């Protein structure tokens, strides 16, 4: 975490004084971006850096679905299964992904390439069904498009 402190300092400068507690979420996001997950040592380091209670960080990590405390596959495939996506084929698409990757949602392929997740609404309902791979949205997905997409991901 230490090498990110200069970045955190720049971030802090944008906030009013006394907003250290507010930096918990942005710092955790940045740490996860950097490491792929938030490690126990990051929690202790961030608590000390921001001067916030450790429990606040642990609570936030468990409350927000995007945070994770364990490493996952190189490619995080998140398929939306909420109303609009399901109405446009998400349920079939998720079945296809399960078969194609050979894992259930929440699991990682044995080669560590893919982690499959289902999520609830990514705000892309007009181009449903949507699959998010790492940070990128892939909209209007079909089984064929998914296969082509996955094939291109090492």
């Amino acid at each position, binding site marked *: 975490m230490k090498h990110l402190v200069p970045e955190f300092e720049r971030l802090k400068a944008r906030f009013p004084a006394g907003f250290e507690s507010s930096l918990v979420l942005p710092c955790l996001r940045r740490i996860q971006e950097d490491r792929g997950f938030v490690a*126990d040592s990051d*929690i*202790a380091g961030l608590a000390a850096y921001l001067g916030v*209670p*450790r*429990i*606040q960080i*642990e*609570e936030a990590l*468990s*409350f927000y679905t995007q945070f994770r405390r364990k490493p996952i596959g190189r490619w995080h495939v998140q398929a939306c299964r909420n109303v609009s996506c399901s109405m446009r084929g998400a349920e079939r698409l998720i079945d296809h992904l399960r078969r194609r990757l050979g894992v259930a949602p929440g699991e990682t392929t044995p080669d560590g390439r893919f982690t499959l997740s289902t999520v609830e609404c990514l705000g892309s309902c007009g181009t449903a069904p949507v699959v998010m791979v790492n940070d990128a949205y892939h909209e209007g997905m079909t089984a064929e498009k998914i296969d082509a997409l996955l094939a291109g991901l090492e």
Partner: protein
Amino acid sequence: MPEIFIDGRAVQAEKDQTVLQAALANGIFIPYFCWHPQLSVAGNCRICVVEVEAKGGSWLDISCNMPVSEGMRVRTDSEEVRAQRKAILQFITLNHPVDCGICDKAGECTLQDYHYAYNGAPSISHDPKVRATKFFDLSRRILLDNERCILCSRCVRFTREISKSHALGIEDRGDHSLVRPAEDGCFDDDPYSDNVIDLCPVGALLAKSFLYKARVWYLRPTPSVCPGCERGCAVNLWHRRPEWQLNALDPRQNTAIARVTPRENPAVNGPWICNKGRDLAAIFERARAEQAMLKGAPVGLAEAIAAARRLIEAARHPVALVSNWGSNEELAAFKRSLAGRFSAAFVKIDRQPDPGERLEDDFLIKRDKNPNTAGARALFDDAPAALPAATDLVLVWGEGGDFARLPAGAKTILLGSYLAPENGHADVFIPVSIQTERRGSYTNFAGVVSTFEPCFAKKPAVADAEALFAQLGAEERVPA
């Protein structure tokens, strides 16, 4: 002072009060789980709902977060309120195991009480309950049953607002939310942690030291004062009710302290005590000295008293070291009956801090680990660094006497309660009762006098110090 109307009754409320506070202050009960007078308003349990009647119609809302306003009218028991309370209780018990039969909290459980008072109906759910962790080690001292937890957050708020350890939080979300300690284990280091056990309105937080020990209705709370430091927190010592004495099982339980809980005293400790106060059994239930002795040889109590009188009579420069664990009444008895027979009487500091014990903080814990130093000092002087060389008799009352440093050749009379090597070395040893066997009072550091009541009878072979001092100081001369 706004006047409000609760169930049609005019009530004078304080300006910054909530409806719940105004109602409780005026003897009108509104049920609540998450609210607590010493904690911030969480407003999450939703059971304290009341109906507000206004011109445009009435509405329901929680009373713990409802400020009073002049002329407002609320109903605490309307049909709507009763229906909503019942629905809330059905939600609360939906995933609660309702295992009162094996729950330590049964008999003093808010949920149990409210269920009988406000619901009483069986669950309408046919679906399996959400399973959660049972027997989770919240700390070395406390067990957590997450299935019984109703997520009122009282324990969490306690660690943030009162003990300031920030040791607890709620992890995950929805009906999978779990109270959890911070992973660095800092809850183990919170010397006030056990207050969350009393705060818990259900059987989710349990003292390991009390786990499955007794149904609470077999126990009686005796008002007492914690002797752990000069704060003198008001406590209740819980012990087996005399009418429920055990004969066949372990009869030692009849004279054991099952648990210690705070007894609210705003002038001293509010509703809290520290963990040391929870562990008074560790102090009181040490092996007791119950045998009078002359130089280690067992004798009857009367014989020992007579021997002590002879020693006092014969001494030319007798000095007394009085106990700062003595009650005000015992200290006064000593002063009244016996002090005139001694050249000097000094206050002895009976106990020093245990290794690793928190010395003091800005909450409850004080540096002096004795209950009545202030009471003793009001009557006696502090001891000098060394007793006068001419001292030929020392009466040591209580623990902590440094026998190695007594003037050479001085005789000793020791009044003690617990087994200790020095008991057998004293010229006269007289066993005396302890706090749980007598009535008395202590004066705390701030001058507040608190009284304690006896839990158990003392054994006949043990002296009561107050009576003993009168006997030792009586005018009647012993034949030479």
